[in-house]
């Protein structure tokens, strides 16, 4: 984005960009980026990858999964019965992978811009230990 872009242009840019992923959607796509997973695996992977900053409830997880599936970003990939419990696997789609990549790129651009501004203002950029991003 042009650094001289005005507020209104910035807002217009914000509207025209693909809708921002919310936290649950971002972490669910991240959890599925490496391989297919079932519901509880997604919960665990999300909590681990976000270092505990995101802790989804099961109801919230399934609401988010339903929305992502409707948007074509993930797809159901079969069901299994394990120890009498039904497990449905989910897999990220090509659209989902592109969407996650775009989101990550956007975050990196934002982070670069922030670092640049901090450097201009003579503050040293010091990443805090234990924070993923």
């Amino acid at each position, binding site marked *: 984005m042009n650094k001289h872009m005005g507020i209104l242009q910035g807002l217009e840019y*914000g*509207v025209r960009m693909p*809708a921002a992923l919310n936290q649950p959607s971002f972490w669910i796509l991240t959890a599925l980026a490496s391989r297919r997973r*079932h519901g*509880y695996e997604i919960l665990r992977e999300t909590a681990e990858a976000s270092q505990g900053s995101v802790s989804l*409830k*099961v109801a919230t997880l399934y609401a988010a999964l339903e929305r992502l599936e409707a948007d074509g970003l993930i797809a159901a990939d079969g069901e299994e019965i394990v120890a009498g*419990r*039904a497990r449905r696997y989910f897999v990220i789609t090509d659209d989902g992978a592109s969407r996650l990549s775009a989101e990550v790129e956007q975050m990196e651009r934002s982070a670069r811009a922030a670092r640049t501004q901090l450097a201009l203002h003579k503050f040293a950029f010091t990443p805090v230990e234990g924070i993923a991003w």
Partner: protein
Amino acid sequence: MSRAVQDPFQRLLRWYPRRWRQANGEVFVGTLRDQAEHEHRAAPTAGDSLSAVVNGIGLRLDARVALWSALVAIGLGACSWLALLNGLGGAPWAANVVGIVTVGVVPALAVVAMIAVMRDRGWVTAPRALITILALVTSLALAALAKLSWAQGFRLADQNLPQTGLADAWGQLFVVAWVVGAAAIALLVDGLLHRTRWPWFARMPLAALVGILAAPAAGVALINPTMAVVVAGFAALMALSTLSGRRVRRSPAATRTREARSSDDRTAVRWLTGLSAIVGMFGVAYALTGAAWSAGAADGTVAMGQGITILLAAAIPLLTAVALTVSRRHGRAAVSGPIGLVILEVTAVAVAYVSAPAWDDMAPWMAVSAIFGGGAVAWWAIPRIRGPLGLRVAVGVALGVGYAVLFGTTTIPLLAFTVPVFAVVVALVGTRSSRKLIAPTAPDPTAALSA
């Protein structure tokens, strides 16, 4: 009690709609059990339960709930107006019932319909939709109480009595209704903006500002039954469109039908609109100045009534021109039927205004005109809205009844003075020479020669 209901994990499923339970119930419970086993629990946590309750109830707010809420709102609104027009049948309790329905039930149902259709379309999440509905309905209830408080305050003031009880609480009720309504609207607007990339410091103040400014206007508008019925009608159309789940695809044949406009039609439109414009302008002049020069107009009021009759007569060729101009892709009957009924509606109003200002003589004709108008709205809507036939008929009839009861006796007289303007607009639109028959593309036989 069945085993399924005794199981604490299964019990959470009760909050979800049946269709969702059938599709996801086993997997949902399996995930809850996996997590509980890992955390050495035998039951869901309070957080899991609350989340299931909010998401489950929120998911029940779908297009079907929206449609039926809207239809009930329209039906109740129409019945209430009919009851008011009939003087409430002389029953003393009827005024309270109609008051509660028009100021409380109809606006609440309209709000439920609008939010449910937004939830179904994915514009807001299920928990946000549920919280917004609860807050908006609370705000509307407080606004209705504020309205009652205001009316009671006036009564007490007329009797020179001190403002006590409900009458004394108007200020507090209004402020609390405003705050709760503003919070609900802000929550909704923030949810709608959440999908943009606007940062929170742009999104949240904007949502709060919209909430603060819109809450009093929306509250005052919604506790007016006419506006609530209009909102419900809009929600019904959106819900039906969502339920149908498909967009109208214009076939090439339909496009050709829409665009085709013969030169005979254009000539007829030109003559009809010209006639409307000339007679309509005479009607305006007569209504405003007839008392000064016409022997038939005893005073300004009579001249105004006769002028409106002339204007409505001028509307008949205009409506015929409209029938020749609008798209016929839903069939000839879907155009000529409703427009024919509008012509009958206009004729009935014109006849009524011959007796103006004697309302007793006008009233039967105005009632007839409202029935024709309602029929026209229903007939126009049913072929054009989307969805299963039964639902389309239900929505069309609800819209027709809503129009007839709420607007049937006021719309046509109000629009009478716009006849000359509409005549010019229809003349410009309906006689454009750019409208040509779209024929299938054929190879140009001269192209080979020129090559």
